[in-house]
């Protein structure tokens, strides 16, 4: 059994598919609320002409959340000619629907309207676009944004998802394997982020940012016999990300991260991101690369798994030690340890 077997098991544990049961409940919630928002839009004179799920569930790079909260990005598209001039108008309409249904924490964010079903651990983002021909415009703006801070902004949500899934540079017979390795790498790095960063910082290391970096710097790795080599692929891809110029050192040892959308509006995904986020991401990626290289050098599978378990958490399993492992050498200490006058309840 090689290390790849452990990666395969890990991947099976963390991958989230649209067909998964865990996701179905989230989807049912989403369907019921979506119908009401659509009705409200139709009554307001701008019917929904198209809708789709965007994000990782579409690109098949979703992972089972360790927080237990399932996210859905639901895109609703209205026709350009019927769309109100103010992009915040339909967002307020969606907010009304959510508030009438009793969501206390529903709110308008700059790119979307969000709602939490705390009871079911479901978090839905409604993303509203208008469409003119093939061109999409995203409704950008917060509830009280003035004219300067709201706009129908050029966007290409379908183009982005196509770009992520496009492996047409590879021969047909290998494209599927390559694409699947890419998807696994994205899932590994997302779980790594959730494990290694505090909850607050983890939300700022955007999944789409990681996905774009991995896609742009992806180093595919299969053995000459065609066997998957995810450990090597991941180590090389992380190395390429570090060398690709996404990180600029603004002060000694302090980094800012910039990753540009590969489609319209070509904006920096990490626009407004702090030096702290950039620095943490840079340093942790560097440490990740080093640990992956250490694991690659080892021949003891259990030791390799221990390193990977520390990076990716307990879904990366560590096999039991052999029986003679119980004769492990014991640490010798210089003192007995201090018993404090403990209390408990």
């Amino acid at each position: 059994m090689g290390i790849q077997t452990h990666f395969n098991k890990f991947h099976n544990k963390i991958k989230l598919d649209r067909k998964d049961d865990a996701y179905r409940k989230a989807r049912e919630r989403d369907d019921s609320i979506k119908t009401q928002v659509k009705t409200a839009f139709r009554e307001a004179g701008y019917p929904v002409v198209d809708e789709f799920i965007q994000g990782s569930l579409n690109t098949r790079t979703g992972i089972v959340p360790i927080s237990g909260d399932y996210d859905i990005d639901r895109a609703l598209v209205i026709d350009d000619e019927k769309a109100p001039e103010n992009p915040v108008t339909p967002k307020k309409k969606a907010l009304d629907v959510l508030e009438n249904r009793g969501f206390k924490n529903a709110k308008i964010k700059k790119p979307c309207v969000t709602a939490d079903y705390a009871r079911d651990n479901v978090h839905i983002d409604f993303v509203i676009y208008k469409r003119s021909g093939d061109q999409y415009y995203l409704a950008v703006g917060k509830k009280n944004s003035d004219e300067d801070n709201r706009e129908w902004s050029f966007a290409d949500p379908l183009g982005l998802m196509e770009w992520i899934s496009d492996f047409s540079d590879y021969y047909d017979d290998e494209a599927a394997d390559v694409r699947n390795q890419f998807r696994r790498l994205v899932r590994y790095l997302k779980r790594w982020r959730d494990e290694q960063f505090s909850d607050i910082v983890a939300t700022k290391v955007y999944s789409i940012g990681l996905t774009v970096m991995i896609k742009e710097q992806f180093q595919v790795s299969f053995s000459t016999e065609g066997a998957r080599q995810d450990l090597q692929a991941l180590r090389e891809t992380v190395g390429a990300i570090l060398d690709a110029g996404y990180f600029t050192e603004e002060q000694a040892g302090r980094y800012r991260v910039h990753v540009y959308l590969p489609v319209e509006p070509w904006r920096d995904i990490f626009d407004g991101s702090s030096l702290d986020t950039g620095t943490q991401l840079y340093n942790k990626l560097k440490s990740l690369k080093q640990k992956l290289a250490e694991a690659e050098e080892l021949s003891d599978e259990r030791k390799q798994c221990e390193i990977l378990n520390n990076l990716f958490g307990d879904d990366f399993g560590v096999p039991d030690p052999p029986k003679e492992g119980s004769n492990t050498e014991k640490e010798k200490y210089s003192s007995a340890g201090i018993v404090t006058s403990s209390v408990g309840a």
Partner: protein
Amino acid sequence: MIKTATSVAGDCMYCFEGYGRRVIVNDEVAEVWHEHRQTVVTACESFGVLMGTTSVDRREIWIEAVTTPMPRDRHSRFSFALRDPGHQRAVCRKFTSSDGRAIYLGTWHTHPEPVPKPSCIDRSDWVTCLRANRGRPLAFVLVGTKEVRVFVRSRGRFRPLQRRCKSDGFN
């Protein structure tokens, strides 16, 4: 449970894993916990310190002995205060007799609930224990009426380890 193999700590009844750590509990200790479960409404909380050895990399710990409430401790159904110096003396004796290998490894106490959860008081007390024993791989045990849970500090939080037993393939 079929006893097929022995570990250093004797037959091991419980093994807990996670966060790069493994905690192995020997039978005598598991029995002490079992006896002290708060299954009777009037039973007080029981508690004590954990003693045992660790691997050189300090990732594996073997809980080989525990202390139980002593005369100068205080306890009620919902709280306790470990004050008797006898606990420290027990730790020092183990340390000496093991040639410096058996040390203080944390605390245990009972909760009158099936699946015990640490209270705020528990967590803040555990922080105090860790501060007094920097660099030591301490674990904290809660003994519920149905389950025993082991917690370790990992990345700023106390996290429960997953229980495994022999029938799950451990040793």
